[in-house]
């Protein structure tokens, strides 16, 4: 696992503020994510999740506040952060007109993997994801479920300390969705930190801890079990609706 050897927390956020004009997209956020934790980052559309993720990934400057990701400072060490995180969006950032192997080679190359490492990763992924039948296929010819698993694998090709997953399971069938979560569990068990957003409330249950954002602020943060007790709710969906509807 790469990342700053000294760091004990995967993410530390203190008093993070992001303003667009007079609008507080992130209104004094403070939270920490442990190494190896599966952290669910929930909130209604427009609550400010994407803004916060962009900052954590080093793609956007905060207005104020302290942020450390994988032990690196968001103001001074953005390049180191980018080398030590993985990112997968709902749109799967794969090249449709390239083959599976070409996509792996491309991302491996960007992250500075050697030829030998890229070759090993290619063999490993094709084997692990059961892609043998699609070896020569272009990514656009892959069924959605395979594409999703490949996008995840490519996002962690450089063995980052943390991987950010932005609605990774939208639209896939229920079995594939669960197989995907098993991939996530496997990576977390091996020490990777998972930072994930989703609109499926049953998936909130798979997280070690969950934060719920409402209008730019974190209104709740705890394990799913504790949140349900705290809000007297049977499911995470009830917790979410109670919070988001105010």
């Amino acid at each position, binding site marked *: 696992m790469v990342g700053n050897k000294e760091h004990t927390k995967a993410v530390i956020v203190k008093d993070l503020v992001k303003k667009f004009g007079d609008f507080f997209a992130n209104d004094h956020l403070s939270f920490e994510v442990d190494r190896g934790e599966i952290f669910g980052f929930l909130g209604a*559309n427009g609550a400010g999740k994407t803004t916060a993720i962009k900052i954590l990934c080093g793609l956007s400057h905060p207005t104020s506040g302290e942020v450390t990701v994988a032990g690196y400072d968001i103001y001074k060490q953005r390049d180191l952060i980018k080398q030590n995180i993985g990112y997968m969006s709902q749109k799967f950032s794969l090249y449709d007109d390239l083959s599976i192997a070409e996509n792996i080679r491309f991302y491996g190359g960007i992250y500075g993997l050697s030829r030998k490492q890229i070759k090993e990763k290619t063999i490993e992924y094709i084997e692990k994801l059961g892609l043998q039948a699609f070896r020569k296929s272009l990514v656009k010819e892959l069924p959605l479920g395979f594409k999703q698993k490949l996008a995840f694998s490519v996002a962690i090709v450089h063995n980052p300390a943390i991987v950010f997953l932005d609605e990774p399971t939208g639209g896939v069938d229920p079995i594939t969705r669960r197989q995907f979560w098993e991939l996530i569990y496997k990576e977390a068990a091996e020490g990777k930190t998972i930072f994930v957003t989703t609109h499926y409330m*049953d998936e909130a249950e798979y997280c070690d801890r969950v934060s719920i954002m409402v209008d730019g602020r974190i209104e709740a943060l705890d394990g799913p079990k504790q949140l349900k007790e705290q809000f007297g709710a049977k499911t995470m969906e009830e917790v979410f609706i109670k919070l988001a509807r105010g």
Partner: protein
Amino acid sequence: MIQIKNLHKSFASIQALKGITVDIAEGELFGFIGPDGAGKTTLFRILTSLMLADQGSAIVANLDVVNDYKELRTILGYMPGKFSLYQDLSVEENLNFFAGIFNTTLKENYELIKPIYHQIEPFKKRRAGALSGGMKQKLALSCALIHKPKVLFLDEPTTGVDAVSRKEFWEMLQSLKKMGITIIVSTPYMDEAALCDRIALIQKGELLDIDKPEHIISRYSHFLYGVKADKMYELVKYLRVHPLAESAYLFGEYVHFASKDDLEIEVLKEELEQANLEDVEIVRLDANIEDSFMDLMQKAEKGEQL
């Protein structure tokens, strides 16, 4: 209201629809439930006369989708999955534009769209492109309703929408249903099945089952248990290779363990504890629509008779 017979459609080597047959009654709230790539959008495009099928026929409100397409288009409302309004026009301009196309006015049908439109009316001067996701969805629905259609087709109206807005959207559909509009909706969210009168489960261009949601669930034939333990990933791996396992999947806070046979909860609990799992909790469960869907999906993949 709608008779669909043996619809087929292929794109190059991909068979998007492999013989879809279903009848939908007047006033029904009917859901096509299935993942991306199941064929939902292709089906909706054929039913709204925007695409021709390779084979088969479809009648909507006594009108043939091919021969009577001109008349058909005046009586149906269609909300595509992708936001398709004019981003550079304001909320009000979009509504007036669509009303104009159908030779009507916003004023004439105001009562019909009022329950939905009044929520975005304060923003009527705002450009559609500058609206939030939830408001765009309400505007798109208002535009699809502006000509008082008899049948409303909604293609994945709740995809990418948060749990609160989804709930509100379904409340709006219930009120439209009360006005007598036949509503055909598609969704990848299994939990929305319970909100429909009848559903068709669709996967890879085929219907897995058509019925009232509770009837589909009642046909689930395995013994289902919810199992919880301290290490969920270890638990699901263990249960999947259990001799009695039909399937084992993560399911919110439980693993849903479908057993081939009735089993003693205490015996399974002991067994799991011996396998080094702690805080084990087991309950007998009734299947939900997602359990049914996954079961039917697996059977279809194995090529079994449904």
